[in-house]
């Protein structure tokens, strides 16, 4: 069955976790559901036309490319919705962030830890597009550099650079 596409349900089951984590981390929990649905519906429409070479190794990078684009769409829409004077609060604090803090409070994390994470994830959302996707694909979706490059459509070297730059910015946040 080398070249045959798996049934879409299996494709969804295999890749839903990294796509979900990627979206929760890039657009926040409140918007992740819509982006998740849009990502996989776009994938479903294109699915039967996927070329055999794309099929063989890289269904995961392919669907994360779509998720990456959806997250960019979401960030652009957010920028349009935001007030002309765009401040940190407008970009970094959609209702979803508070929800995340509440769920972590209820769960395993100590309050201080939850607060720190919240600041971290707001900072991730504020990163420039490519850096944000690179950081999240590397550490949340656990992709190797080659697949990060494929997903965001750049060279492997450029992906490493974006990842490095993104991490440098985040360090400033967590070291506060």
């Amino acid at each position, binding site marked *: 069955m080398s070249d045959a596409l798996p*049934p879409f349900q299996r494709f969804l089951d295999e890749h839903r976790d990294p796509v979900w984590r990627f979206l929760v981390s890039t657009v926040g929990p409140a918007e992740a559901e819509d982006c998740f649905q849009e990502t996989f519906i776009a994938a479903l429409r294109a699915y039967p036309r996927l070329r055999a070479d794309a099929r063989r190794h890289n269904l995961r990078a392919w669907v994360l490319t779509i998720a990456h684009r959806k997250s960019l769409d979401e960030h652009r829409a957010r920028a349009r919705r935001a007030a002309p004077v765009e401040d940190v609060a407008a970009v970094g604090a959609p209702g979803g962030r508070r929800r995340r803090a509440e769920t972590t409070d209820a769960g395993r994390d100590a309050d201080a830890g939850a607060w720190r994470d919240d600041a971290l994830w707001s900072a991730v959302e504020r990163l420039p597009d490519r850096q944000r996707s690179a950081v999240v694909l590397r550490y*949340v979706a656990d992709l190797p550099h080659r697949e990060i490059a494929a997903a965001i459509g750049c060279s492997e070297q450029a992906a490493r650079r974006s990842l490095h730059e993104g991490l440098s910015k985040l360090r400033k946040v967590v070291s506060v």
Partner: protein
Amino acid sequence: MSAQSERELEQALRRNANEDSERSAAAAARRLSARIAAEGLADVSYAPVDSPFGTLLAATTKRGVVRVAFPEEDPDAVLERLASRLSPRVIEAPAPLEPVRRELDEYFAGRRHAFELPLDWTLIGPFAQRVLHATAAIPYGSVLTYGEVAAEAGSPRGSRAAGNALGSNPIPIVIPCHRVLRTGGALGGYGGGLQRKRYLLELEGALPAGLPAT
């Protein structure tokens, strides 16, 4: 930036991948499958269906029921075959299979004597279609022989070929290939196993219960 704070940063980033997120992803995927089915974006929908034989796997297209698989058939293999023969847009969603579930329930409870489900014949070759159309016309509780079905299908000498077509029936129970017996009343064969053929014939009153048919 110390190596330690670098590790802390990476750990904090990785913390987003946890069991909560797996549960949320699974729930989001279920809502997605339901939406795909509701909006008609899937080419094939499937769902497990309970039966006295165990859990059947039933699949439908927009045309109608295309496959009913017995519990011992490997679901992955069944779905892969549907993906390659029909379309890879194969989604698990119970709603489109609801009529199949209902009619099978009624049938197994003895309350339904004829299926009204539309069928998709795409998986069935031309000769097998003639054989299975003739089979679908056998009334509840009646039986024909392989030779009679072959004759109905236009091949009076094709009882062996008819047997093969019946053996590869992709929609058993609904297309009642269990109603075709050997001349003389022996059960012949059945893709789902002879015990099930006997069970269905007894359910329909076509076979006296406990008859040691071979």
